């Protein structure tokens, strides 16, 4: 197997697109960047181009969130193929993901869900890691999770599970020191006991991040500075295990790049400082860390119970008092509720952010109710959560006026154009040497990030009215024709005439130019001929057509 020994890279950062202009301009002194694999596996265009430029200057490692190593579903072959394809292109120094599961029965909660630490789960996950490593042709590294609930079914500690998993699967470990702090706080474990039990020789990378302390529990928000107690734990890990590839994550409320770089500087400082900033944290244990299982519950049943609670929004569905270890001030139903809320808010925002004009047209209460109803009725199934909105217009149709529905269709299309593949626009030089005869036999392709629409209402005008800050009202019925597409990294809207739309739809259906034009001028429509040259000129100038190259 390749990559048996992972390279020593030094100090890195989680790459966030908002920092790209700064990175391009300043070429900061950072040893490597970690990318989120899923942001590039199912997306083309600007994101991939940015990644290509980044990797020209920095080593890259890939960090995934959707491998779902703990699920009982078969390995997701589409996911693995896309992951491997990305790895073949990016040539990362290593590939990582998490000890977690994201869903079963082909549902996806888009969360890093905890597994019960049982012998059955351990054997299952070890076997899957081996198969993933075989499929990728390289050793992977797995990260310890932040968790908000602990199963009563667990028969061993998290640290014992991770240690045995790494040895059994012969995989590497990504030690997220902040996650250790978060989980130890939430479950009242002892961080030193946790770290001491790990095979640190298998730790190839360390994550550091900030979090949000809610009092009763901590949420791993990655939206703040690393706290001193985590620096102390980081330093303790290095004392025991030697220097490790270390990286800072900052994923929300992202500050300017120099602020994040200061966290990296702190990591370097604490790695060599002669004293720790604090005492080693310790959370009062109210019980033994290992709670022998009082009943044996099949692994699949534990996962099904958790997912049922999350998808239904009903914590009682999983019998939390029976299945979750109670914590002082953090009851079992509150623990599972953390995941239930996260699922709904996450999917809500995915849609809400992408339909501002619809919101303006139908109002806050209506949009809230509509999105909530969609989430209740429609579990997400694809690892790319950006795809979740694709089914929204069809669901919303029965709840919206015809014009509002068409506005919803337009906004959904605009959202999805970002992830479409990149294609180069056809240029006049590409047509050099073409004759009218050869041109008639050509097939002109649309840009990949392009859709054409026929609407019953003036939807583009409605959308523009929203951009102009005007109050939206029900428009008069009036057919309209529209092309939306991505060109030079911006999404554009181009009004079309009806006959123009007809020619374009024939061309984009794959008809040769001659046949498409013949359809447009059938019946001796001489007036159309007058516009043909103008239309092609307009399509070329706006970059609608793709180069064959």
């Amino acid at each position, binding site marked *: 197997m390749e990559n048996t020994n992972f390279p020593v890279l030094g100090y890195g950062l989680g790459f*966030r*697109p908002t920092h790209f*202009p700064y990175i*391009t301009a300043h070429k900061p002194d950072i040893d490597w960047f970690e990318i*989120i694999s*899923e*942001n590039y596996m199912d997306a083309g265009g600007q*994101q991939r181009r*940015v990644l290509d430029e980044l990797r020209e200057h920095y080593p890259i490692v890939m960090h995934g*969130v*959707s491998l779902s190593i703990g699920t009982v579903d078969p390995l997701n072959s589409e996911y693995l193929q896309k992951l491997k394809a990305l790895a073949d292109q990016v040539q990362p120094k290593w590939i990582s993901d998490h000890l977690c599961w*994201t869903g079963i029965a082909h549902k996806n909660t*888009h*969360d*890093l869900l905890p597994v019960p630490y049982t012998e059955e789960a351990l054997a299952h996950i070890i076997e899957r890691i081996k198969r993933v490593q075989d499929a990728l042709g390289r050793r992977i590294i797995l990260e310890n999770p*932040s968790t908000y609930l602990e199963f009563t079914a667990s028969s061993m500690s998290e640290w014992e599970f991770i240690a045995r998993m790494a040895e059994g699967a012969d995989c590497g470990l990504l030690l997220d020191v902040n996650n250790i702090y978060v989980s130890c706080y939430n479950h009242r474990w002892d961080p030193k006991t946790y770290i001491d039990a790990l095979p640190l020789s298998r730790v190839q990378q360390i994550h550091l991040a900030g979090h949000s302390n809610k009092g009763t529990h901590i*949420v791993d*928000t*990655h939206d703040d500075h690393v706290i001193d107690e985590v620096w102390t734990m980081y330093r303790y890990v290095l004392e025991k295990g030697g220097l490790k590839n270390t990286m800072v994550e900052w*994923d*929300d409320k992202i500050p300017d790049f120099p602020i994040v770089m200061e966290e990296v500087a702190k990591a370097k400082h604490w790695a060599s400082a002669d004293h720790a900033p604090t005492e080693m944290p310790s959370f009062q244990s109210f019980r033994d860390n290992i709670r022998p299982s009082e009943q044996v519950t099949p692994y699949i049943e534990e996962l099904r119970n958790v997912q049922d609670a999350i998808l239904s929004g009903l914590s009682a569905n999983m019998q939390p008092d029976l299945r979750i270890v109670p914590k002082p001030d953090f009851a079992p139903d509150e623990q599972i509720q953390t995941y239930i*809320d*996260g699922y709904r*808010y*996450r999917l*809500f925002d*995915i849609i*809400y952010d992408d339909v501002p004009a619809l919101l303006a047209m139908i109002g*806050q209460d209506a949009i809230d109710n509509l999105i909530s109803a969609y989430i209740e009725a429609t579990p997400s199934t694809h*690892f*790319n*959560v*950006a795809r979740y909105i694709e089914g929204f217009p069809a669901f919303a149709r029965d709840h919206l006026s015809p014009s509002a529905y068409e506005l919803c269709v337009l906004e959904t299309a*605009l959202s999805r154009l*970002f992830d479409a593949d990149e294609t180069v626009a*056809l240029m*006049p030089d590409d047509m050099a040497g*073409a004759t009218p005869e050869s*041109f*008639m036999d050509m097939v002109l392709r649309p840009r990949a990030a392009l859709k054409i629409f026929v609407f019953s209402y003036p939807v583009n005008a409605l*959308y523009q009215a929203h*951009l102009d800050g005007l109050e939206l009202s029900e428009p008069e019925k009036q057919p309209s024709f529209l*092309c939306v597409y991505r*060109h*030079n*990294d*911006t*999404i*554009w*809207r181009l009004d079309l005439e009806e006959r123009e739309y007809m020619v374009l739809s024939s061309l984009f259906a794959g008809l040769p130019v001659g046949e498409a*034009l*013949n359809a447009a001028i059938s019946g001796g429509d001489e007036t159309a001929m007058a516009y*043909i*040259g103008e239309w*092609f*000129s*307009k399509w*070329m*100038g*706006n970059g609608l057509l793709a180069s064959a190259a």
Partner: protein
Amino acid sequence: MTTIIQNKKVATMALAGILAMGAFSAAPAFAGHHGANSCSAAGCSAKTEKSSCKAKTSCKDKTSCKSMSSCKDK
């Protein structure tokens, strides 16, 4: 025969249109975008950035926390 002649005439006009390449006339889809310059290849447009963050934040770090409060207020 008439159709072929007519098609050749139309194709000539269409090809001339392609070679003439007209002006850019589309409208941006998001407020704050003013053509390609506003986001270029730099990944700086808010829309693009949000899109690229989706997979990460939604799964990785409980963006829900930030989003939770913003949604609860909605």
